[in-house]
């Protein structure tokens, strides 16, 4: 099937199998390997992307469901590309919010969605929001710190 969507701010048209998951389209067909697969039960959140501006787990969405919509992955998070990090990416770097990096793209996308809904989240709100994203390295401590710092930077950038 031919689908059309906006991917990281660029319009694309592409042929996909009907049973293909969005994460497979991104990783296998489009080589956007920043979106990761960490489980098979929609628990870990490593595959989290934005669809029409909201976070979705791309392992639980068919590629064809993205037809006509807008998808953003971690590769497209910074409008400036690699020239300048998104404030949330910068906050994760500044606050040691990542270790092995595998959960990081999902964490970033989830955090940016949270700040879009709640520009000044409390620590408790951040922890509750991230309940759908697993990290095995950090104990979440510095991720929470990063999200709060990233939220502040996003407020300042407005």
């Amino acid at each position, binding site marked *: 099937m031919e689908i059309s969507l906006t991917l990281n701010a660029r319009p694309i048209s592409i042929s996909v199998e009907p049973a293909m998951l969005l994460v497979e389209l991104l990783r296998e067909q489009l080589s956007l390997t920043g979106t990761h697969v960490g489980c098979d039960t929609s628990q870990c959140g490593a595959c989290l992307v934005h669809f029409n501006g909201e976070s979705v787990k791309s392992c639980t969405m068919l590629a064809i469901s993205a037809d006509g919509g807008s998808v953003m*992955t971690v590769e497209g998070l910074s409008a400036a590309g690699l020239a300048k990090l998104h404030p949330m990416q910068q906050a994760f770097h500044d606050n040691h919010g990542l270790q092995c990096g595998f959960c990081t793209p999902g964490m970033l996308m989830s955090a940016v969605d949270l700040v879009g809904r709640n520009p000044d989240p409390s620590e408790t709100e951040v922890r509750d929001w991230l309940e759908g994203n697993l990290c095995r390295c950090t104990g979440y401590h510095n991720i929470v710190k990063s999200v709060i710092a990233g939220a502040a930077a996003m407020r300042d950038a407005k």
Partner: protein
Amino acid sequence: MSMSKVIGIGAAPKRKEDLRFVTGRGNYVADIKRPGMVFGAFLRSPHAHARLEAIDVTAARAMAGVVAIYTGEDLKADNVGGLPVGWGIHGKDGNPMKEPPHPPIAHGKVRHVGDAVAFVVADSVEQARSAAEVIEVQYEILPAVVSVVEALQAGAPAVYDDIPDNLCCDWELGDAAAVEAAFADAAHVASIELVNNRLIGNPMEPRAAIGEYDFASGQHTLWTTSQFPHVVRFLMGEFVLHIPQHKLRVVAPDVGGGFGVKQFHYAEEAVVTWAAAKLGRPVKWVCERSEGFLSDAHGRDHFTEADLALDESGKFLGLRVRTLANMGGYLSTFGPNIPTNLYAPLLSGVYRMPAIHCSVKVVFTNTVPVDAYRGAGRPEATFVLERLVDVAAIEMGIDKRAIRRRNMIPTEAYPYQTPVIVEYDSGDPIGCLDRAEKLADVDGFEQRRLESARRGKHRGLGLSTYVEACGLAPSRLAGSLGARGGLYESATVRVHPTGAVTVLIGTHNHGQGHETTFAQIVSDRLGVPFEDIDIVCGDTAKVQFGMGTYGSRSLVVGGAALSKAADKVILKGRKIAAHQLEADLGDIVFEAGEFSVAGTDRKKKFTEIAGAAYVPFDYPLETLEPGLEEQAYYDPVNFTYPGGAHFAEVEIDPDTGTVTLERYTAVDDVGTIINPMIVEGQLQGGIAQGVGQALFEHAVYDESSGQLLSGSFMDYCMPRADNFPAIVVAPHSTTCTHTPMGVKGCGECGTIGSPAAVINAVVDALQPLGITHVDMPATPNRIWNIIRNSRAALAAE
């Protein structure tokens, strides 16, 4: 980003490796595509124990896209060997452990749910998986045994026909007679029976492997999610596939967490490498999470009875420990070493313990193989000792901190020889405890407990101290304990003509921040700007050799090799400078990136000397080779012994049984700290994994069918962000006396100290109900039942 300057030891630069990860440009094995690549899927046994009677692949082979199907018989016919064990232990009778073969794909029998039965290669993953489902296997289902206690009962099913008692090894350490004498003199004996729950490490990146073969060169390549690519090359090349070392390249690129789970040589690595050569096409396998639950080596799984003898003042006289340790259906790479050599030698903890005896029965069951998981033996030892100390304190009416202080090794008593092999070089357990109790506001606990009680909640405070042996390992000592290889590390410092540096090191970075920490060491030693240093690891075609990353060894052993190599660079640089400055070598000093003649203003910059080494016009060519690249191997003289004191504070809701971790405070002695930001991150993450063991995680097998009941993230409870308070970590370091920089390692501290701290807090909270022990994990269900039963018992009195 960092500026162009020296960033040395003790600074906290942001990590070099972050940029690729925050922008989605990491390069994990699952991200790699090779030309002409095909995809593999394993058919795995649905039975815990069965004889393989017949495998019919006819229908599967005819399916769309299928390239090949291989069974264990095919591998056997091609002379593929079994997966080797890297550590052989001996029983107390002097006999070697039982070491049955471990074929990469089963033949004859399957021994656990998830044991590989066939490997399907197809044009797509979906086609391979679909075909695997069509393979017809006739199993003769046999009775299975999953628990260590059951496996040792008379008449239990035998995992191996020729090992009817399921006993791999009956091992011991210590002086049984001295312990019996200590117990005979004891004023009090405290006893405990406990389970160390089986865990599944679950790094967030599932395992993956790609094999490739180049006919023209005869070169095999394996990309794998490994913590130790050189060891995989050796074990797989030498013992399994019989590929000469120079014809086998193993690459472990970005790896998404390891925690021990990725430090073994796995069957899948051998199968994809073998199949790629058979097919002449790259073969890729990516583990699904639920498949990982059934094929990643598990951790822990002990049943233990232990007794502590004390005099009337609460001083420890002796410790007696009897443990049954589950090995699963096969011996994994380091399996037998974990509940023996990495367990019993730590049972003295941070205490003067005059006599110790530990016996360990290492047992086969019909479960996934058990091997090292973060901490590996040391959390188990800490849990036994620190639970037992709490039980003794309660029974004798001594304050839990006081009984510990009374028995701790004072800092001036180091080096301290324990009765169980190890000699601690340095430490300050009392100092750690002093600092931890202040940071944890132990004085304010009673107030907080009363406040919780007003809300109908039980609040508890738990303390655990610990010591660990890390920096694995002094080769000669390890060899005497059964290691089948050396445990040194290697590093090459390659100074480029411009003075920029590439380091090639045999450890592996999979989250620990080595690219940053090691660059700080080089920047510090050579005075080279931090940003002019790159660290390369994880590729046997680039890095000379290495034992990899596990056992908190990377900085301790790898960093020491790096430091040694830097010393050699400095020495050669001094020789070049002596020539150019027309001075004696002994008069050349190197400081802050400059070689100078002592007491003069004559000097050469590091960059000038590097340039001269590669453009050797003004150079002592008669006595010195050109170039500036030095390599060092470092074999540690002892283990290092990080330690510390951890306080956990929990609140329990008696109506639901829910345990909430309210506070966590850790003070750790990790020796010299290179990058405090990274060390704190390691501690926080380690603590979360230990809290996970104490409160949430449990790999549960059905006793009769041998099915893994907790086989997905829906069933196996992983710790999440909302399970934690902010974690307080602080250092209280003493300097290691035998490592070049005084470092001790920090990767496992958190996981070792925390389970006992949390459970001691849970028991403390429930002590008013007469409860003296709670097994892990302290789930709401377990706690609710304990509270209900104890209330019923109290009411009946």
